[in-house]
């Protein structure tokens, strides 16, 4: 369990064996979890900033509806973390504002 998270592990959960990165730092997940679940388990901090007002947001509905869990995954912007199963080696970046056009970072 991470002190910054609002979530605690239930007893007897499998170990977090999947290693990903979030803006260069290690992010762990259990097999079968979504990227959003891993983000919330690590911290309740903002994982995106909205394009219009810059407000901080993170995963909320966990069912593909609210789009507040958008992150960049393996270079692909505005991916819904709650709809994406965690995979070893994923490179995740917080989504700060609107995406760029073309292949600009």
């Amino acid at each position, binding site marked *: 369990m991470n002190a910054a998270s609002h979530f605690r592990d239930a007893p007897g959960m499998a170990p977090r064996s999947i290693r990903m990165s979030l803006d260069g730092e290690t992010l762990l997940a259990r097999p079968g979890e979504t990227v959003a679940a891993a983000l919330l388990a690590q911290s309740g901090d903002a994982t995106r900033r909205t*394009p*219009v007002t810059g407000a901080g947001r993170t995963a909320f509905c966990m069912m593909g509806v609210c789009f507040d869990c958008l992150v960049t995954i393996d270079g692909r912007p*505005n991916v819904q973390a709650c709809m994406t199963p965690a995979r070893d080696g994923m490179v995740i970046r917080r989504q700060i*504002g*609107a*995406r*760029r*056009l*073309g292949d*600009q970072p």
Partner: protein
Amino acid sequence: MSADAGTAIIGGGIVGLCLALGLAARGHDVLVLDGRDADMRASQGNFGLVWLQGKGAGYAPYGRWSLAAVQEWAGFARRLQDLSGVDLALRQEGGYEFFTDRAEFDAFGQDLHRQAAALGDGFSFELLSHGDLAQRLPGIGQKVVGASFCPLDGHVNPLRLHVALRRACLASGVRLAADTPVTTLRALDRGYEIAGPDRAIRADRVVLCAGLGAATLGPQLGFRAPIRAQRGELLITERVADPLPFLSSTIRQVDEGGLQIGGTKAESDRDSESTDQMAVLARHAVAVWPQLADIRVLRSWAALRVMTPDGYPIYQRAPDRAGAFLVTCHSGVTLAPLHATRLAAWIDDDPAAPDLEAFDERRFALS
């Protein structure tokens, strides 16, 4: 028995609210009767263009009327922003029409020459080959054979325009009655009775700005009202941080970053989208600007244009008696500045008002 309103306007869309604002500014007591939320609402489904190029190539009065409108848009936006506190996001820095078909490009070029001949000095345009265009817009797609450009064209956020008009109307003393559909219109000895399922009111004057609803309401007051629906479909994409370096009649970047892609035309009165038309729009956008290929579409919708047989507005006084008017057009955004000023003067029979006989619906009886 005194009337409930000096002037009742049936329809609280962009056309009706512009006229309400104009009549209130002329000192009238104005009541706007707006329909149900689920009614067809071109004002909430449109693309937001302030557009001149190509308009009135075959009908000079419409070209001149549209030219005056785009020339007055900047001042109108300031007036509306002052009254409402809403930023309309008007950008009027010129617009393109892109072509992937050589014959269509050539035909549109001839339309623009005819439009220029009719309009004289106030109008200008450019015709650009693919090569010209590639210098100006290096990201242009290979399939684009050419484009036209008109420096007077622009766009506005149409939802904010609608909100701004409502606020400006309220600030000007207009009364707005929401959720008040009208089904029956009747001429009284003096004035008119306007009735719906919930209530009936009396007004000294009545102006029909009901969009597609005028097709059934108009004949009750002796209007022909030859109006039909034409479906257009739109895509909205995720927001993009980079400014799109152009505005076109089919692709525009909303002020908050998302792209709106549209322009389909189907003769239908059903406002439902179709995946084949959505695909047509997406392919067109990528053909024009290949960098859009991986941009996600977030929403789509279909909306119904309010069309007359020739596509030009109808401004019509009731044939037999004073005080009833039919106002309808499919360019309610572009023409907004005139509807809020000169058309209100015309409703009042002001000697300074323009002669709008060219937009009389009796033109359809001649052919």
